[in-house]
């Protein structure tokens, strides 16, 4: 399993989409391609924007299908971060 501690990369307010994209393309996606599980540890991340979470995971859902969520563990998300992740995963399942 690949473990990623987000706080040291994105700070306590996760809004930088460039960093989200970099994490997705350079670490998360290559790990998933190899069949690894990924743990995204949000400890210390107080809030995130929908844009950040979208840039982090939407393409993975598009690429691998919604079952990819079985391979990603969102660890220690506070209420706000959890709800934003749920909004993004929900609308990705509603897409055309």
């Amino acid at each position, binding site marked *: 399993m690949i473990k990623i501690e987000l706080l040291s990369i994105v700070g306590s307010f996760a809004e*930088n989409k460039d960093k989200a994209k970099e994490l997705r393309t350079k670490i998360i996606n290559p790990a998933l391609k190899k069949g690894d599980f990924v743990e995204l540890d949000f400890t210390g991340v107080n809030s995130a924007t929908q844009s950040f979470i979208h840039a982090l995971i939407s393409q993975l859902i598009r690429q691998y299908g919604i079952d990819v969520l079985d391979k990603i563990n969102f660890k220690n998300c506070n209420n706000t971060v959890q*709800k934003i992740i749920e909004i993004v995963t929900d609308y990705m399942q509603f897409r055309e």
Partner: protein
Amino acid sequence: MVIAMVAALGKNINPEKIKIESFEARSKHYFERIGLFKFLGKDSGMSITAHDPSGRFIPLTKIKNSTQQTKFLTEMIPLLHLVDNPKQTEPIQYIVGELVRNVIEHSQAKDGAILCAQYYKKSNTIRIGIVDGGIGIRKTITKSHLAADDFEALRLALMPGITGTTRKEGGTADNAGAGLFFIKSIAHVNRDFFLIYSGTAMFKLLKRSPSEEISLQSKPINDRHSKQKALPYWNGTVVGIDIALDETQEFSVLLDLIRDIYFTSIRERRKEKYRKPKFT
């Protein structure tokens, strides 16, 4: 917001061609402190004692890239003395973060985002203005959608799931088309004032009274609003938002409301697209 607009307009003019008439109003010191003259490359000729701005305002600031944005968002909250109040800081960081991000990604503005903010003690409100001199909403949105005029472009941009980067529901890898809808919704739930102006059009979300029930709308035309379609052309986009700190709702509660209306909206759009076969 108006100060940010003046700064954005003046930024492209040779300072030698800008003439500042002497004025006696007490507000002249305010313009000096918020950094307007400095921003325009002019010497105001004023000599004032600069007090620490923290807790009162954020001077005119230019943000051109992600690094500057992250730095600004970190420094902004202590400046407004809101460090220990996440209920109030979350929506402010969220709104400023998403609006500045929009400018950096979509506006093609040479100077990036120009913003400033002011805290008003009496009403316990923060007023924020974020302005750019880029291509504007209509040019961005019509890359993927039809918009006959600037107001139609604003209407589309404020709807959930509509982005200039694709026609597809769910957006692209990097854009979902939800940013402005989230911001309008945050303003609505918190009974805040929100205004967006681009090209010749303006949409203004009117403040709700405390007795009015919260009812989020996916279509901005269903919000209590005022609009203008023939304003002087603004090259780029202007956003003004007043955040009444006493009215601020828990951010997680607000997200529940946004989630509900987001999916109602997607379902409605699907229904509109649904066609039955004709049998004769």
